[in-house]
């Protein structure tokens, strides 16, 4: 009987903090990029209000910065999309379906995978290292 090998990711970040709660999203993205720069692979599991980051209603840019009206400030969904594209299969973003539905945040950008929380344990088993960011 053939046995399907499960892909192992180097790092899984379970992002439980709300994006507006502090610097945690910046830290998660910086750590992800650092692992990608080393040739590693990273997946982010967005939990709770972290699911608001990848809504397709954001468009590509944030609202204009009146102190820098010509500046370009990508939206969080644009940042995630760029990292997925640049990662060429080494960066993934997962939206928790239960958390998304509870918040009415079900319109994710198409690059985001949707997963039931029932698959969280299996997702953790597919990573060599898992970190919870933002508290339980």
């Amino acid at each position, binding site marked *: 009987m053939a046995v399907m090998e499960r892909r192992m990711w*180097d790092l899984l970040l379970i992002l439980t903090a709300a994006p507006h709660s*502090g*610097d945690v999203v910046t*830290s998660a993205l910086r*750590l992800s990029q*650092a692992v990608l720069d*080393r040739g590693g692979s990273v997946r982010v599991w967005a939990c709770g209000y972290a699911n608001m980051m990848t809504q397709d209603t954001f468009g590509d840019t944030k609202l204009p910065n009146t102190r820098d009206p010509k500046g370009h400030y990508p939206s969080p969904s644009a940042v995630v999309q760029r990292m997925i594209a640049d990662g060429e299969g080494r960066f993934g973003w997962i939206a928790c379906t239960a958390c998304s539905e509870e918040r009415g945040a079900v319109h994710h950008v198409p690059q985001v995978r949707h997963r039931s929380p029932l698959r969280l344990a299996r997702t953790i088993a597919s990573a060599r*290292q898992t*970190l919870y*960011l933002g508290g339980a």
Partner: protein
Amino acid sequence: MDARTAAPGAGTPTGAASYFLIESKGNWAGPNAGTFLLDAVALAEAGHRVRVLLVEDGVLTAVGTDAPEIRRLAGAGVEILVDDFSAAQRALSATTLSPHVRLAGMDVAAAALTEDGCRGVWH
């Protein structure tokens, strides 16, 4: 956690493990931040390799030349790193930090967390 509960197990040939602990909370965030650093001390005193990275508001723990938490970690042999970006965001320079710490980028965390057998914890 104390040195007894943190005792090395029989899972590795030497019994010692490698920990990379990341503290993102400032001291005022509640007692858990200090407790997390005490866990690092207990693990180091039990013979494990322990590295602590202070990030976000956690970098403020390293301010000053005589921060007691940092002194305790250094005394236990813990390697203490301060995230350079978080320090810069809070207008902290290397001269305002404890002599027991060194500035490091997120590349150091990425390297540690992808080492074989390294146990990472983010608080």
